[in-house]
């Protein structure tokens, strides 16, 4: 089964790509892993189940958002090099600023983006993490 490929130290480091100040956000209590996506409006911690996302198998994520109140979150996958997304539409369950997304599948190897599309009264922000799946 394929595993997420470590792309070297530069790729392994979480990068704050937004130009503004990132929202501070500690790892949620009780989490032992996960990754952080820092945005201008929100910052998210997210963690997949299973932890190593395989090619061609369903997985889920849990996430926690720091920032202003959230109205809605959509989760999706995207292959920028191929210009296509997933063949499955995940279901997001939101409970305050935390939630889960179930039914994701990255169906081929290559560069994938996991995108959390967050909406609230203050605006909308796309939080993106990416990796190469082999």
């Amino acid at each position, binding site marked *: 089964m*394929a595993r*997420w*490929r*470590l*792309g070297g130290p530069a*790729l*392994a*480091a*979480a*990068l*704050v*790509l*937004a130009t503004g100040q990132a929202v501070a956000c500690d790892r949620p209590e009780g989490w032992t892993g*996960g*990754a*952080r*996506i*820092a*945005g*201008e*409006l*929100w910052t998210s911690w997210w963690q997949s189940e299973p932890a190593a996302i395989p*090619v*061609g198998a*369903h997985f889920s994520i849990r996430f926690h958002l720091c920032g202003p109140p959230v109205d809605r979150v959509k989760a999706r996958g995207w292959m*920028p*090099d*191929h*210009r*296509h997304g*997933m*063949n*499955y*539409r*995940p*279901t997001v369950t939101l409970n305050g600023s935390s939630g889960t997304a*179930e*039914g994701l*599948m990255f*169906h*081929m*190897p*290559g*560069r994938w983006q*996991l995108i959390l599309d967050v909406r609230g009264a203050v605006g909308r*922000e*796309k*939080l*993106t*993490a*990416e*990796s*190469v799946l*082999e």
Partner: protein
Amino acid sequence: MTPWRSGASVAARLSGFAIVICVFSGIAAPAPALDFTAEEERRILRHGPWPPALQLDPSNRVSGNPAAIAFGRALFFEPRLSISGAISCATCHPPERAWTDGLPRSRGQQTVDRNAPSLFNLRFNRWFGWDGAQDSLWAQNLRPLLDRREMGVGPGGAARLVRTDRQLSCGYRRAFGEAPGADDARLFVDLGKALAAFLEAQVTGRTPFDDFRDALARGDAAGRARYPAAAKRGLRLFIGGGNCVFCHFGPAFTNGEFADAGVSHFIEPGRVDPGRYGGIRKLRQSPYTLLGRFNDDAGRSTAAKTRYVHLRQSNFGEFRVPGLRNVALTAPYMHAGSLETLADVAHHYSTLDEERLHAGGERILRRLDLSVREQADLVAFLETLTEKAPLHEFVEDTGNAVCRQPVQ
């Protein structure tokens, strides 16, 4: 340490990052030495080991049951499951011809719109049928029994046959532990499940590629050297510039999903095969899915795909990506058998008409412009995915003898 990098609203900002996988860089000339790079070896190793661990299908309570396998075998060769009494599953899927009929489009009661795929390795499929209209092997087995162009016996006819035929009734009782019941629909689905138990057993054997792959895994230089040079060059194309590996991924050489391979969607002038788009619509209307009452797994543990599958306009004209094991035995190729040989397949991708692909579609498929030698190399590699040993020994209808002994 996470392998992820992250950002917010980053569509434009990510463009400066290095792309780790070369999506399409043209076909580089093969290196004179046929040693693979470490990255190539990693990709090759992901196409094994073979065979993988076999798991029972929790949606089918007779999965792996020897009595059900024997009963399914009897059903597979049973022509009375067709409205004419002359067509069995084996008519279009003769085991002695690698479970396919060699025709571009198969003939049951009538000529159908698609090619009869081989039945190897079905237990590893996620979706069934060229359009994925079925989400389980047992549901797939019901489709030809329902389609009047294929066998068409229907639930009532099939149930009546099994209830009234002594041997079939006995076979059912042995497989399911009870006499055939009065519920036509349930009995009909059980026939699909017995057929599934039989077809699950049809797993391909080891191939020259597997020997090479395993030699790589254990660092066996002599084992590596036995793999033909042309196949190595073809393998390098397959996992590299040919982009084949994006869809034909993993031990079964398929990602289990759907793609527009750039072949015609027209069944005949004015009539188009919608492919996956139609398949998802059929799936959602079917009573025979993993979300329905016939799933034997109360927890619906394998039903996520059905629950979350997403219908998109781009599904139009997509067809299931077939596995490639024993591919040299299963001509003709593509969903309507439009390509006669593996050489034709290599030529198709080499000269692909990109205008034919959907605008805004995937960037995976590009005209490869392979040289004649490169096309031959690709074919040489594909041929090594085929078993050297004789095919499964399926010469007689032993299944009908299942109940010649007294029932215990």
